[in-house]
């Protein structure tokens, strides 16, 4: 067991730290982000898990052997299709498109709460700690059968917040009988 002096990071906050993300082979380089839509894999622990590897039609994600290895992301091969997003059991894969417009970027993430937002809604984008980061417009809500009830939501957010926004603020569900 680690001691109380442990550095801030996923084991002490539930949020991967900047250092952990930078050190993760699934986290794309800034250069790759500038080129077009790519996925951002925020997987920083050695969990025995590899469905992302098989899910990628481009072979851009490699876990290999042992299965606890962190996924290695090859931005050259990634076309930003996002097939891996709903597959990840840890919901740790996102997609960022920095090239969307002059001042806006797109952020896509898995979402499993009701009510689902609708295309065109203005919602609050939240960061990794659930903190409200900005207003954002819902550009797409994908939930085909193959996603098995995990929706993938795409928001347009101010470009400088693209690496901060990772979900949207849950609205109080009205899901009584």
């Amino acid at each position, binding site marked *: 067991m*680690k001691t*109380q002096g442990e550095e801030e990071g996923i084991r*002490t906050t*539930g949020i*991967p730290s900047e250092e952990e993300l930078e050190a993760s082979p699934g986290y794309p380089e800034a250069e790759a982000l500038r080129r077009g839509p790519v996925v951002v894999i925020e997987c920083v*622990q*050695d969990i*025995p898990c590899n469905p992302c590897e098989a899910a990628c039609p481009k072979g851009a994600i490699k876990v290999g052997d*042992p299965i606890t290895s962190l996924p290695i992301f090859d931005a050259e091969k990634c076309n930003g299709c996002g097939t891996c997003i709903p597959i*990840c059991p840890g919901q740790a894969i996102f997609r960022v498109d920095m090239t969307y417009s002059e001042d806006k970027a797109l952020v896509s993430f898995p979402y499993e709460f009701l009510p689902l937002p609708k295309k065109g809604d203005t919602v609050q984008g939240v960061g990794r700690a659930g903190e409200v980061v900005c207003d954002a417009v819902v550009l797409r809500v994908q939930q085909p059968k193959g996603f098995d009830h995990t929706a993938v939501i795409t928001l347009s957010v101010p470009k400088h917040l693209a690496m901060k926004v990772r979900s949207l603020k849950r609205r109080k569900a009205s899901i009584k009988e």
Partner: protein
Amino acid sequence: MGKVEVAVVGAGAAGISASIEAARAGAKVVLIDENERPGGQLFKQIHKFFGSEAHRAGIRGIQIGTDLLEQAKEAGVQIRLNTVVYGLFAEKCLGLMCGDHTEELQADVIILATGASEKPLAFPGWTLPGVMGAGAAQTLINIHRTLPGGRVLMVGAGNVGLIVSYQLLQAGAEVVAIVEGLPTIGGYGVHASKIRRAGVPILLSHTVLGAEGHESVERAVISRIDKNWVPLQGTEKTLEIDTLCLAVGLSPLAELAWMAGCRFIHISPMGGWIPVHDENMQTTLPGIYVAGDLTGIEEASTAMEEGRLAGLAAAEALGCLSFEEGAMKKAEVRERLETLRIGSFGKGRSLGKKQILESRGTV
């Protein structure tokens, strides 16, 4: 007295898997469960599982449960529900109770897959209605679609506490906070990240001092603790809640194995007392096998593989599988089991399992 080749006790992840393998090999299998529905905890697991394709990663537990039951049916497993195994007696004889009716069932091989139960945590007010096991809340929301309350405090940041918190949010409740006595999150970070994004704070080095309320829980007092678990004065906080869930660990449910006279070993990180077993999942009593959480707390994926291993070994012992066939199939399962026990999360379990196998050789 009824007779059967293989009696499997507990129709959860391990028990169904064991039944499938034994029945596929040609054994006559009866799978017994005290509940109205089979599946054990699988149908509460509405999240996608980790692992590899062979472990059915990316598929929700509820789907895996449905598929397993289908396979069991195809394999010819006889499932007896609403049936309590009230005792395990000499000559591998099980005492069964179904409603007001009792009977005895004698088996050539018994596979115990009775799972685990939630560990309690005693504090002032823990007997108030509204204080319950996290597993209880999970059963209520995911099986019976009924919320036990609207504002929940979760105690424990292991995988159970994290997953059930997330599922409470999905069912429409608010989770006020997760408190955890340890200075680190025990469960997978990705589970913690999901609920942090959903706005739930995780308070480490915190404990619940008490639950208060008139006829049911209305408040909980929490406090920071030092590394000796002593509450730090002045750090108390009162949270308005109506439900307090305990997710402070599981312990193996081993009553039948104790009753039978199996030898046990105590391994704290695996949940406490565990029936000693060999690499075929056979206990110290010939013909009595164990699988799943009863053999040390792990997860559904490992329970399924252990079940398969026990089922194959049972079939082999009955002569339904040749030595070569048995050896080959068991090796495949063991390899899959191994991969689930590597990495920093699996290390402790891997060591625990080794300790169990080693103690098998010593008397």
